[in-house]
């Protein structure tokens, strides 16, 4: 497969390291630095899922944790099955095997989608599959079909082969998010001598600065990010945690961090290596430098594959080098992305 929608230069992917992966039984090519979502977009894969109930085709709409459609089943073997991974958060590795979790018999040819087109009017809003629960004896007959129509991923049938780790930590400052705000905060705290943990859910720290062509102090913002990260890495009292989601903020500044150590390297971790680690952190101060999620505009057919939110488009063009296909449609309302659109047009020309 050729990567039809791939830009020829720029971005943060390594074109010298092609990777092959599978989606829905077919093999595609991507590059190191891609997310599964960006690699699929580069290959022109538009339909990645089906909606509940009406089974309408769904495409990738975002580039981060807010992705509602590209929810996949990962794993090359039965023991390494992981359900419900967002393709926008999964880094590409060589030999990655993914399956869509919705759509039957497949996302491209969906039985329920056709059924809904013909009989959709017979399924009014407010009709739920729970309706089939009565009479109770019939449920066992319906269940497996309804689960197929409504469910997402499945759990593995074999024992997990990987090791999972946890660690207790104390720190002066815990910073959630390594965008411009988080990095500045980490720098100030580290220079003052405080113990710092900087956790960011993405593979690369820098947040929104990685997407754009921003200039900071007369140099590209990505260079500023690089210099800050180098300085932070030089401090013994600073701990940088990329690929680490802060997933709980409990009483008295107790936070939990879910760090993915090897999920980006392969189907399973190397022997005697932990795959994921849970950090239980007691912090004196917490700085929440998380970003805000962009909300999509509400209009008819706003979920047709090919349409995405503007911040995601900016990420895909500038960071992950996906050129837009002929049918790209962009919701541009909360974040002016006109410069990105012009850049896209220029690159296609």
């Amino acid at each position, binding site marked *: 497969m050729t990567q039809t929608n791939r830009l020829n230069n720029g971005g943060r992917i390594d074109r010298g390291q092609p990777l092959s992966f599978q989606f829905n039984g077919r093999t595609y090519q991507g590059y190191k630095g891609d997310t599964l979502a960006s690699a699929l977009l580069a290959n022109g894969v538009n339909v990645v899922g089906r909606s509940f109930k009406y089974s309408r085709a769904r495409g990738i709409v975002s580039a981060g944790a807010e992705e509602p459609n590209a929810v996949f089943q990962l794993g090359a073997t039965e023991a390494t099955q992981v359900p419900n991974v967002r393709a926008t958060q999964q880094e590409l590795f060589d030999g990655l095997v993914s399956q869509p979790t919705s759509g039957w018999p497949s996302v491209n040819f969906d039985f329920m989608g056709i059924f809904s087109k013909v009989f959709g009017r017979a399924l009014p809003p407010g009709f739920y599959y729970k309706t089939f629960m009565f009479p109770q004896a019939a449920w066992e007959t319906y269940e497996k079909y309804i689960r197929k129509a409504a469910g997402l991923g499945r759990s593995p049938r074999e024992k997990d082969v990987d090791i999972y780790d946890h660690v207790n930590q104390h720190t002066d400052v815990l910073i959630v998010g390594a965008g411009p705000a988080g990095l500045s905060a980490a720098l100030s705290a580290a220079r003052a001598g405080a113990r710092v943990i900087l956790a960011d859910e993405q593979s690369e720290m820098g947040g929104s600065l990685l997407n754009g062509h921003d200039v900071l102090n007369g140099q590209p913002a990505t260079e500023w990010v690089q210099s800050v990260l180098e300085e932070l890495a030089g401090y013994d009292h600073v701990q940088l945690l990329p690929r680490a989601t802060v997933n709980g903020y409990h*009483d*008295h500044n*107790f936070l939990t961090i879910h760090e993915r150590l090897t999920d980006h390297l392969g189907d399973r971790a190397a022997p005697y290596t932990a795959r994921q680690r849970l950090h239980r952190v*007691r912090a004196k101060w917490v700085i929440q430098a998380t970003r805000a999620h962009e909300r999509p505009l509400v209009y008819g057919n706003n979920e047709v594959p090919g349409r995405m939110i503007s911040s995601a488009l900016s990420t895909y063009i500038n960071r992950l080098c996906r050129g837009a296909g002929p049918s790209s449609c962009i919701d541009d309302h909360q974040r002016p992305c006109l410069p990105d659109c012009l850049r896209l047009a220029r690159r296609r020309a």
Partner: protein
Amino acid sequence: MFYIYCPYCGEHREEEEFHAKGQAHLPRPENPDECSDEEWGNYLYFRTNPRGLHHEIWVHATGCRKFFNATRDTQTYEIKETYRMGEAPRVTQPSVTEQS
């Protein structure tokens, strides 16, 4: 998960090391034989369940194994103070900002 200062150890420790033991400062009736059933029943079984400040007993179960008192806000889970057995609490009123 609370972070509790043990007044005997002189350190903050994780909640896992402690057990809560209920309401503090319950005077035992001077002469139980002369109590009515109701008075004795109240002493044994009836506890306040306030929204806001609450004085309660904790035990540092996996630490020094000593009992101590804490003043905790049941609404915000903030622990205002911890103090040794036999001492009187210093925090008995909500702070001015919390009253408004």
